[in-house]
């Protein structure tokens, strides 16, 4: 079996008339944690959204492969069912559907198997404990009235429950306090194994400290300008992006 999980090849992406990504190449193998860092507006979130084929963005050139299969033009739900998950920067609020029911339904869609309610609830409870989440949130409407921190934890909970092959975390750490960031890191550790991969998009080195990161990519103006090991993140934290900008 090939180790290759995600392969982005020469990807150009526009938002409306605006060019955002200008030729991205990125390969993630199973068992790896990758990080994308970059200044505001460099195209980090666009990369995540393009992988999931968000209709607000247009792929102009290049492609995205998952385990060797071209997923560039699949619908978002099909991509999700193939095992890609994204933790949203601003999770949507959906009134009228509880966290439990939503996840049960999504899990059924992703696995294609019926979900046994009692086992499922136990699993949910276990993960919520790990993430220090209030068990009452299970019965609340999805993200409605959740604080910023609760929303982000709820994204990590979804990641654990849906157990994707590739998890993309789009600035999951932004706006979180130290404890919450630690919880998110813990969630990632819990999720991570040799068969899956993680792509973390962040501004911030804190979330990376307790993780073993394989590659750090720096994205500036729609291009990956350099790639390095975990130390690169520390260097950027100290020095900023200035030297990568023209």
């Amino acid at each position, binding site marked *: 079996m090939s180790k290759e999980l995600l392969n982005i090849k020469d990807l150009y992406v526009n938002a409306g008339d605006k060019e955002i990504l200008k030729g991205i190449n990125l390969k993630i193998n199973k068992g790896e944690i990758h990080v994308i860092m970059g200044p505001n507006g460099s195209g980090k979130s666009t990369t995540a959204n393009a992988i*999931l084929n968000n209709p607000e963005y247009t792929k102009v050139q290049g492609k995205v492969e998952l385990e060797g299969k071209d997923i560039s033009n699949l*619908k978002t*739900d099909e991509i999700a069912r193939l095992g890609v998950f994204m933790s949203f920067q601003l999770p949507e609020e*959906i009134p*009228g559907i509880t966290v439990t029911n939503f996840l049960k339904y*999504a899990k059924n869609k*992703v696995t294609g198997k019926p979900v046994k309610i009692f086992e499922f609830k136990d699993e949910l409870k276990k993960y919520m404990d790990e993430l220090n989440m209030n068990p009452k949130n299970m019965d609340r409407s999805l993200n409605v009235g959740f604080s910023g921190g609760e929303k982000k934890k709820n994204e990590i909970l979804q990641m654990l429950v849906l157990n994707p092959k590739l998890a993309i975390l789009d600035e999951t750490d932004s706006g979180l306090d130290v404890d919450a960031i630690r919880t998110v890191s813990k969630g990632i550790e819990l999720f991570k194994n040799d068969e899956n991969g993680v792509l973390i998009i962040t501004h911030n080195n804190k979330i990376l400290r307790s993780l073993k990161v394989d590659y750090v990519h720096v994205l500036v103006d729609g291009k990956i300008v350099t790639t390095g090991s975990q130390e690169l993140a520390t260097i950027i934290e100290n020095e900023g992006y200035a030297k990568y900008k023209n």
Partner: protein
Amino acid sequence: MAKTQLEEINRNIYDFKNKDDYDYKIKKGLTREIVEEISKQKNDPDWMREIRLKALEIYNQLEMPTWGPDLSELNMDEIATYVRPKGKMASSWEDVPEEIRNTFDKLGIPDSEKTSLAGVGAQYDSEVVYHSMKEDLIKQGVIYTDMETAVREYPEIVKKYFMKCVPINDHKFVALHAAVWSGGSFVYVPKGVKLDIPLQSYFRLNSPESGQFEHTLIIVEEGASLHFIEGCSAPKYNKVNLHAGCVELYVGDNAYLRYSTIENWSKNMMNLNTKKAIVGKNAQVDWVSGSFGSHISMLYPMSILNGEGAKTEYTGISFAGKDQNLDTGFKVIHNAPNTSSVVNSKSISKNGGKCTYRSLVRIMENAKNSKSSVSCESLMLDDFSISDTIPTNDIRTDEVEFSHEASIGKISEKTIFYLMSRGISEEDAKAMIVRGFAYPISKELPVEYAVEMNNLINLELEGAIG
């Protein structure tokens, strides 16, 4: 409350029609002779016959509404205003004629009665065919019966309240109602009696080219409380049917009444219904209203807050599809100090349907320290449907807090993307969002009705979204 799980509902249970098999059907049209004949058929006392004849005169004087949906398809000469089904009113389902009983069986009424209701009334065309209430409530003095029985057995109460909350000259279709009314429910809850499970009346119009004009009169005395549920449906015919019911609610001091309606008339129905409540001191009336059916609806329940500290809440949803024009909303008059009203209205338009939210909030000079907050949201599911919001806010004094918010738009692409990123198909995502949109209303309904409403939404969305 006991929870019943309903199986997936399909449209057939509403659309099946029985043979137009009646005991008596009056000839079509509306004349003095016809009104007198109805009165005779119904064995009215003189005073009721006089009300009918006076109402007919008023009907002839009043003009059609100068606003709202086009009612030109309605031709009173083509409507039979009285259709008496076979059989007499029964207090046991065994005694209801088989075909009619089967109808209510399919609608799930006797089942609900066993599990979750304190009493049930069932009307078929113009007459109530079944009425029954739990024994212990009878002992506490609660009266729940059909209107005709009430006119016969409690004439003093009926005389005092009938067409007093809704005056006969309110509008043309109220006058029509008063002239030809038949059937409906009468509820009297004595002082201090609290019903913890609901009463329900179900109205079924089977006969083509006819009208249903049931009268519902509910009196909740001081400190008493009641939840009343009204359900309506009809099979679809090609010609116009008319529903011009009238609901009068009297809520005494410190009393509570919740009035829930799920209206699923067939799409040839003109639904021109009038509902009003007079609310006493520190009393409260809550309206929960789901409008799914009918070709044209004009329905604006009204709360008149006459007592100091009276409260009202309106929670309503309408869902208009092809060939539907649902003009609904709420009216409230704040007529005493410290009164409050909360309005939460939602509408969904698709497949060429039109939803209009039309309302009135009037805060009178004497209603010091009153509060009113209105929120209405409209969802458009395609670009050939229509959604209008026409609220009138009439504030006549300064010591009040009034706020109104409305919004209109489509399902957010971002939300769809979020759900799809969790493996949910676009269709399912949209249905989930619409159900979520309707949730604040469905959560106010008894569980069976909430399930029914969700099924109705799924049905309505089938084929509409893609």
